[in-house]
C-alpha cells in the first residue's frame, strides 16, 4: 500500500508537558473510546492495559527542590530507523499482525491476526504494547456502553494505541461522501486530544505545514547528520522525542520549557547533554 492517492500523511502529536496536569482524562477517554476492559485489581501497572499511560517523572532532587512532571505516553507510532516504516515492533512481528501505514504513518494492530507471541512487546522500549492476559469481562449490563467502532479484543492478543484510526476512517468517509480529496485538521483528532482539559495535546499531520503540530514541531525532513537513523528531529529548541537516539523515530513529540524534563527524554553519558542540548537539527532555511 504505497502512496497511490495524493500525498502521504504523517500523523503525529506534540504534548505540552508544562500544560499537562496529570489528571488522567486522556487515559480514560482512550479507554472509553477504544473499549479497553478493566479488572478488579489494576494496581499492578505491569499488567494493566492503558494505551495511553501517564508517567510521573521527578528531577531526583530532595525537598524542597524536588520537581515533578507528568508525561503522557501513547504508542509512539515509530517510523523506525531512517523513518522507513520498519518500526521496532512491526519489523519483528512474525505474522504481519502489526503493520506500518505508509499513507498515514500509523502503526496498526490486527487483533484477529495476532497469535500472542509478544515479540513486539519485547521490541518496544516504551512499553506501549499491552497483552490481554485475561478475557475481557464487563459487569452485567456494562457491555451496553461498548462502541461498535473498535472491536473488543479477545484474550491472548496484543493491543495498543491506534491513534483512534477509526476516527480517521470516519473522517475520510465523510470527506469522500462530500466529494473532498482530503480531511481537515479538526476532522480527525484522537480521543485523548479532544479530552485533554488543559489543551496540552496537539494532533495533526506532521507533513502538513498548515497543521498546528507541524508548526510547533517544525520537523527536520533530513536525516540528522549526527545520527543517520534519526529523521524528523524537531527544530524547536523546547521540543524533544523519547529515546530519539535509538533511531525509532517516534511521531510523539514533547514540549517543555524545563531543561531537566527535556534531558529525561533520552539517555546521555556524563557531560554529553551539555554538548548537544543546544543542537536542534538543521536550520529552518533548509525547508
Amino acid at each position, binding site marked *: 500500500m504505497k502512496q497511490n492517492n495524493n500525498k502521504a500523511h504523517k500523523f503525529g502529536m506534540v504534548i505540552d508537558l508544562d500544560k499537562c496536569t496529570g489528571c488522567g482524562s486522556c487515559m480514560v477517554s482512550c479507554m472509553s473510546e477504544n473499549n479497553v476492559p478493566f479488572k478488579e485489581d489494576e494496581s499492578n501497572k505491569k499488567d494493566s492495559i492503558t494505551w495511553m499511560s501517564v508517567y510521573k517523572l521527578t528531577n531526583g532532587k530532595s525537598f524542597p527542590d524536588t520537581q*515533578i512532571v507528568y508525561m503522557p505516553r501513547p504508542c509512539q507510532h515509530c517510523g523506525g530507523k531512517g523513518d522507513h516504516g520498519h518500526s521496532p515492533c512491526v519489523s519483528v512481528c512474525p505474522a504481519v499482525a502489526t503493520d506500518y501505514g505508509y499513507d498515514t504513518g500509523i502503526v496498526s494492530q490486527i487483533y484477529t491476526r495476532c497469535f500472542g507471541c509478544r515479540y513486539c512487546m519485547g521490541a518496544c522500549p516504551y512499553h506501549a504494547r499491552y497483552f490481554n492476559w485475561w478475557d475481557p469481562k464487563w459487569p452485567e449490563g456494562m457491555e451496553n*456502553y461498548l462502541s461498535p467502532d473498535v472491536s473488543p479484543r479477545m484474550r491472548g492478543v496484543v493491543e495498543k494505541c491506534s491513534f483512534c484510526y477509526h476516527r480517521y476512517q470516519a473522517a475520510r468517509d465523510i470527506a469522500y461522501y462530500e466529494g473532498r480529496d482530503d480531511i481537515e485538521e479538526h476532522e480527525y483528532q484522537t480521543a485523548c486530544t479532544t479530552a485533554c482539559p488543559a489543551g496540552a495535546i496537539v494532533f495533526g499531520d506532521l507533513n502538513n505545514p498548515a497543521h498546528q503540530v507541524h508548526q510547533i514541531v517544525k520537523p527536520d525532513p533530513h536525516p540528522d547528520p549526527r545520527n543517520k537513523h534519526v529523521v524528523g528531529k524537531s527544530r524547536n529548541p523546547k521540543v524533544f522525542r523519547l529515546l530519539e537516539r535509538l533511531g525509532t523515530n517516534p511521531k510523539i513529540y514533547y514540549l517543555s520549557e524545563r531543561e531537566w524534563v527535556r534531558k529525561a527524554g533520552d539517555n546521555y553519558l556524563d557531560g554529553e547533554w551539555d554538548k548537544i542540548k543546544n543542537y536542534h537539527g538543521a536550520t529552518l532555511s533548509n525547508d
Partner: protein
Amino acid sequence: MKVDRRSFLGLGLGAVAGVAVSPVGIKLTDDSSIWTQNWPWTPVPIDGEVTYENSVCSLCPGSCGLSIRKIDDRPVKIEGLAEHPVNDGGACLHGIAGLQYLYDPARVKTPLKKNGDKFEKISWDDAIALVAGKLVDIRKSGSPEKLACIADKEQGSVSGLFQRLLKTFGSPNFYTMPSLESYLEVTAEALHGEGMTIGFDLENSDFVLSFGAGIIEGWGSPVNCFKANASRRARHAKLYQIESRLSNTAANADKWIPIKPGTEADLALGICAVILKNNLFNGGATANFRGGFNKLAIMIQKDYAPSKTAEITGVKASDIEKIATLFAKAKMPVAVFGKGRGDGAQSLKELAAVHTLNCLVDNINKEGGAFVQPQSEYLEFPDESMDSIADAGFSKNKAGRYVNQLIEKVNESSKPVVEALFVYNANPCYSLHDSKSVKQAIGKIPFVVSFSSFLDETAKEADIILPSHTFLERLEDVPSCAGLAKSVVGLTKPVIDPVFDTKHAGDAVILIAKALEGSIAQNFEWETYDECLESVAGGIWDSLSEDGYAIISEGAPSGSVAVNVSFLADNPATIQAQGDYELTLIPIDNMRLINAGIAASPFAIKTVSDKVLKGSDIVVEINPLTAKGLKDRGYATLTTPMGTARVMINLNEGMMPGIIGMVEGLGHTFDNKYVSNKGINVNDLIGPVIESGSGLDAAFGIKVKISKA
C-alpha cells in the same frame, strides 16, 4: 481375510495417512482459528446510527457541558462539549467515565426497605406510602422540626424541592455537605454580609497566590481551572502555590512555597502585615473596611511580623516579604483559598485572612480579581403556604448550623434530635470526619430515607432507599457553584431511558408531598418534576432548553463592597491538629479520585498510580527524612487519636518533613469490586476540630505516629 497383527497395523497406519492427506485437518485448523477470532464470550458491540446529544455533568459542582455519542439508543462515549461557557471542550476523567455509573454494579435497582440487616425490594407506591406514613406520624407528634435533610447543596431546583418540603412540613433542619461553594458563602457572609458569594477570575489574573488551592487537583470547576492554568504562560501570569506538599499544582506553579500544615492563615496575615507595613495596600479600598481596620492593622503588625510569621509557618521571612511585594505590585493579583479541592475542612480564620489580602490590594470586583456578588437566584418557586404546624416547626432553631454540628447533637443527646432524615446526593457516612461516629449518629436516627442512586455507605444505613436516576437519566438544572468568575446554569438532560426502576428525586419528593396531603400537597401542585422545573426556571427556561445553559452573570460585577474585618480583628486562635503525636497526617486530594460521596469509576481507579493504591493497600507519602527506618514500598502502621491503619510507604521528596499524606477517596465499601475495598477512608483517621467563633469543622489533619508494621 485373516486379520493378523500386521495387517491391523497396516490398516491403522493407512487410516492415519488417509486422514492426514484429506482436507479434514486443514479444515479443522482453519475453523478452530476462526472460532478463536469470534469467541462467543467476547462481546461484539451492535452497530447503529450515530447521534450526539448535549448535556451537563453533575458529578461535581464543576458543571461541565458534555457531548454524548450514541449508537441508536445506547450512549457509548462522553466527551466535553466545545464552546460550553464552563469547559469549552475537554472534560475530566470522571465525567468521561460517566457511563460506568449508569451500569454500576452498586446501583440501587428498585426501591428498597430494610428488614433487619437486609434490604428487600418494595414497589414505589409502597415505598412512598411508607415514607409518607412515617412523616404523618412525626407531624402528629407535634415536632415536625425533627425531620431533617442532608443534601449536597442549597442551589438548584431539586434541592429547592427538598427545602420546600421541609419548610411546608415545618422543619428548619435542612443541611448541606461542606463544599467550596458553602465556604465561599461563609467567607462572604463574614466579610461582606449575608447572601453573598465569591468568584475568582483565574483566567485573567496575572498573579495567583494560592493557599493550597488545588487548581489542577479538582478545585472549583476543574476543567475551567485547568484551562485557566494552561493559558498562564501565554498570558505571562504567575502562580505561587503555598502548600506543605508538592502537589501537582505546586509542581506546575512558578513557585512552590512549602508551609507547615495548618498555618496558612498565619502566613496570609503575615503577608498582610508586610503589605500594611510597607504601605503597599490600596488606601481607597481600606475606606470600605468596617469592624475595626485599625485594630486589625495593629494586631497584625504586632503578631504577624515577618520574623514571627516565619517561625510559625516555616516560610522564610525574606520570602514572605518578597511574596507580599509581588502580590501587592501585580496588576491583577488574586489570593485563592480552599485547600485541596476546597471542599474539605477549612477554618474561617484562614478563609477570611486570605480573602483580606484580596480586599487590601483592592482587586474586588476588578478583572483578574475576586468577584463578590449576591448569590444567583434564578429559580422562582411560588410562595409557600404553611399551616400552623409548619409555621411553628419552621420557626424553631436549627439543631446546628452545619451538618457536623447536627451529627454531634444526635450523638450527644439521649432523646432523638431527629426522627426522620432525608439524604440526597450526599454520603456523610463516608465524607465527614470521624466517619465511625457519623455512622453511629445516622444509626441512631429512627427513620432514614436515602435518595441515592448507589448503595453507598450512607444508603446502607438507611431504612428506605428511593433510588434516583443518575445524571444521564434525568432532567435537572445544574448551577455551577465552584468559585467561577461567571455564574452559569446548565441543563442536564436524560440521554437514555432509566436503566433500572428508579425515579427522579424531584418526582419522589413531589410524590411524598402529595401523599402528605393538606397544605403540604398544595405546595406541590406540579404533576412531575419536569413540569416543575419548566415553571420555576421560567426566566431562563428558554435559554436552558435551547442552548443547554444560561449565563446568569459574567465579567466583573460593578460597584464596591463593604469589608467587615471584625472577625479577624479579634485575632482568633489558629486551629491545631488534634493529638500529641510528633507527625501530622494530612489528606491529599488526587484528581483521579473523588472525595465526595460517590466512588471513582472503574476507569478512574485504573488510572490511579501504584504509589497511591497497591492491591487493597493504601500508600502514604512521607519524606525519607521523616520515614527514618521505614523502607519504600514497605508496610507501616499509622496511629492517630481516631484509630490505626496499616499502610504502604511511598518515600516522596515532595513531602515536607514531619507530615504524612494520605489520599482521599479510597476505602469505599460499595458492592462494586472494581472500586471498593481498596485502601482506607482517610476520614476514619481524622476527627473533627470545631473552630470556635465559626462552628466550622476545621481539622486540616491530625497528629499521627508511624511504626513499622
